[in-house]
């Protein structure tokens, strides 16, 4: 859905490696989790607890709570508000959360 622009004069960013459902994702330092997933072609990050329908980030500004993912075993983290860190284990969520 999203690609990173190749910008000649952009300062070189450090790469950060995170994992989404076990798959390796290359992100850039300063990316939010949601941005990193979108750039890696992830569309839905969860299914809803009500009907099980798939959802992905919508507002990117902390309002809609659609971007919820499990991060290092903690469920329901707002992906658009948290920055990626090397080695982060991110998981998609299905329905209601379990105990972390």
């Amino acid at each position, binding site marked *: *859905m*999203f*690609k*990173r*622009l190749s*910008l000649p*004069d*952009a*300062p070189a*960013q450090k790469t950060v490696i995170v994992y989404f459902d076990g798959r390796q994702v290359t992100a*850039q330092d*300063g*990316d*939010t989790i949601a*941005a990193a997933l*979108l*750039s890696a072609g992830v*569309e*839905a990050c969860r299914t*809803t607890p*009500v*009907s099980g*329908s*798939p*959802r*992905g*980030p*919508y*507002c*990117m*500004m*902390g*309002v*809609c*709570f*659609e971007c*919820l993912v499990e991060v290092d075993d903690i469920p*329901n983290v707002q992906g*658009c*508000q948290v*920055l990626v860190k090397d080695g982060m284990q991110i998981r998609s969520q299905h329905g209601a959360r379990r105990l972390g």
Partner: protein
Amino acid sequence: MTTHDLVILGSGPAGMAAAATAVAYGITALVVDEQPAPGGQIYRSIESTPLKERRILGDDYWHGKALVDGLDDPRIDYRPGTTLWQLTRRLEVGLLQGGHASMVQARHVILAHGAMERPFPIPGWTLPGVMTAGSGQILLKSAGLAPSAPVVLAGCGPLLLLLAVQYLRAGIPIAALLDTTPAGQYWDALPLLPGALRNSRTLLKGLGLLAELRRAGVRHVRHVTALEAEGEDRLERVRWQCGNDPEWHCLTTPLLLLHQGVVPNTQVTRALDCAHDWDERQLAWQPRRDPWLATDVEGVAVAGDAGGIVGAKASAMQGQLAGLGAAIALGRVSEDKIHGEVKRLRRDLARETAIRPFLDVLYRPAVHWRLPEDETLVCRCEEVTAGEVRRMAEQGCRGPNQTKSFTRCGMGPCQGRMCGLTVSELLADANGQSVAETGYYRLRPPFKPITLGQLATAAEDTSG
């Protein structure tokens, strides 16, 4: 509990200007913001954006640099990555930083937490691949991310046009710009044009954007009257109708960015039980404020778009005004002494906001974009449709609170942010009463979810 003279929520134009103004009167200010870096929505990532070529994001963006630099002042305690989860009428402030909750006491509070995009409930708006124009812009500014295939933009309002132009400048193809501005509205707005000319700079910039789109040959579809996002588990197609033409048009696209204006985010002022008024021109709630931007809660002022949409420049001016108000309230300066400065500031503010009535009327979302059809989801979290809300009105629900308790509408993690406006308007319409009479959700902290463990220790940690 540690006491702070001034706590400012938000480091956008209003919050940064408020801080800079207040510290000039010897006040130390605590500025908290959930984002990892200053700038708010408009100047987001200004220090780190990979888009260094100034032309792409435009001068209005880079204008924020001076304000951001102003935060670098020893009297300003700026805390990024910090969420306000609680604020009481006694000005106890609950903060959440790095997973740690604490409480501090404020003497004065300036809320400058800004706006959010107006909900745009169309069929299929919950499909992955449907996002907001604001989110497209955030991804562009903060991560240099842009649509990987031709994108469809839909809706109305200056932000939508701006994003289209920013994409063009960055070489990103736009499949179509579906304009939902109702046909007659150009005429409705016309009488307001003379007033708007007092801020001709902004007006010209708007016209410039339109011209740029035209020159680039973007497919600009006007008078869109129906819009649907379709797809199995993700967005595949966008369908629309124009004017009274019954024919449906269709485009295949993986990404639809929606926008129909911005509205104040009233989550905090509502939870404080500030008085709010329904603004029929902006079609939004606004906390009631006096000329110093103070609310009816002692010691709490609201500056910038959080109090009513005024735009970035006027928000900064309101920030200054609120900063001066804080200096007076905290006894650092007398009103007489700054009389001249305040007069000038108010005059500038009036000139800057002179364009608002024109914009508000021109880009007023038509009623069918605010009151969706029965099958359309209104509450994304609890998956409640417009029809269910209407049924509650039939059963005697006069307002959103009874409706919420009967349907769970507004009870999900977004705490009603995404459905609140729609639900109030739907109920007003169904009950034949005004939105003001219908009211809004009653809200309580936490403003953002906080874990039990954090809450359990919050009352103990008062050191911040």
